[in-house]
Each structure stands twice: as C-alpha cells, then as structure tokens.
C-alpha cells in the first residue's frame, strides 16, 4: 500500500466533502431545513467539532475501503463506480430515515441525489490520486 498517496487522497476527499457539504447543506438546503427545525439542533447548538470528526471518519474509511479493498483501484472509472455504489448505500439509509422520521420528501430526495453526486465525485478524486 502506498501510504503517501493514500494520505493525499484522504485529505483531498476530506477537503472536498467539507466544502461540498457546506455549500449543499449550509446554503442550498438552508431554507428546507428551516421548515423542519424541530428535527434539527438550533444553529447555536450544532456541534461543529463533532461534525468535522464525522467527516474525517467518513473520508478516512471511504478512502481506506477503496485502497485496501480494491487493490489497484481501477483509476478514475473504478473510483466513480465505487462512489456511486457507496452513494446508493447512503441513499438506502436516507430512505430508512424518511420511513421513520417526519422528514420532508424534498429533503429526503435532495439528500439521496446530493449524496450520490458527492460520493461519485469523491470516488473520482480517490481514483485519480491513489496509485498503488
């Protein structure tokens, strides 16, 4: 395993995820979240350090699974397929959340589509940066 390339890919994925989620959740979906404020912490109570820890854990294992699980990785195309499948995995969890939580359908659909796009791009990044 090429640890240097792994670390670069992990950092790149984390930076992308942080930026993407800030734009997607913090700006694009801001008004939608206002409609279901009872399900969210008030802005002042959002735990940002923990949010970043969650993104770090996600980015680390997203990169680790690709690198360790798939050997050569398959480059950009392999990364894209990997990201789309993991996005679908995430989408399954969102559908389950929608079934048990009073989320709006707009939020659930946006999370699914946005999640698949996010992880597809993250997969492309890992596939492009990691070389065994």
């Amino acid at each position: 395993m090429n640890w240097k390339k792994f670390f670069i890919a992990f950092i790149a994925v984390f930076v992308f995820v942080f930026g993407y989620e800030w734009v997607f959740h913090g700006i694009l979906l801001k008004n939608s979240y206002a409609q279901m404020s009872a399900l969210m912490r008030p802005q002042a109570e959002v735990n940002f350090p923990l949010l970043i820890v969650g993104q770090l854990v996600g980015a680390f294992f997203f990169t680790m699974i690709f690198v360790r699980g798939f050997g050569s990785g398959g480059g950009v195309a392999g990364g894209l397929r990997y990201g789309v499948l993991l996005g679908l995995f995430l989408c399954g969890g969102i559908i389950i959340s929608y079934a048990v939580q009073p989320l709006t359908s707009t939020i659930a659909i946006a999370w699914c589509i946005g999640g698949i796009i996010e992880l597809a791009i993250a997969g492309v990044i890992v596939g492009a940066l990691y070389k065994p």
Partner: protein
Amino acid sequence: MNHKRGFLAFIVAFVFIFFFGFVWHGLLMKPMYIATSSHWRMEPVFPILILGHAVLAFAFTGLYVSKVGINSAGVGFGYGIVLGILACGINIIRFAVEPLTTNILLMWFAGDIICFAIMGALVGAIYRPLTSA
C-alpha cells in the same frame, strides 16, 4: 460476475438486515425512541422502510460482488466492519446536527458495526465468482 450467486447473496442480506433492524431498533432501542418521540414518526411507513432496506442490501452486496468478489466469510466480515465504521461517521454527523441522545448514538454505532459485519460474512460466504464455481 456470478449473477445467480450475487442475487442469492442480496436476498439473504436483505432478509438479515430487515430482521436485525426489527430486533435492534424495534425491540432493543424502543424505549430510547419513545423517550425522544417528537423526533420520529408515530408509525414507520413500512413500504418505504422495506424499500430502504432493499436499496441498502443491494448496494452493500453490489459493492462486494463487483469490487471484492471473493468467496470468503472472513473477507466479507472485514468488509462489513469497515463499512460499519464508515456508517458510524455518518451517525456522528447526524448527532452533531440533530438533537439525538448519546445512548442512541452509541447504540447506532454498535448496531451498524455488528449488523454490517454479520451481513458481510453472509455475503462473503454465499458469493462465488464464476471462475471458482
């Protein structure tokens, strides 16, 4: 790719995750959900709940079959563990922005890792690539 074995693994994964979810979330965690009832629907929307489990099982199996593709319960177990930890990252993010209790978060951690580890072992044990069939 062995589609027949892949489909069988998907069905087993789906049945397992649905049953596990019923026991873990529907029975073990029920008091925790009742204590935070304003955060949940009064009754789950069952057709959507089943769809969500099917999508999750499909993606989990599809990723294993298309990218790992080894007939080994041990490899599948490891695959499930790392996907479970990845799911924990998502749970941490949810805890950061949603008013969940720490007990719920910890039970989600344990539930996801146990569930995906067993599911991975099942998928790894059932799936066989065509070359070794």
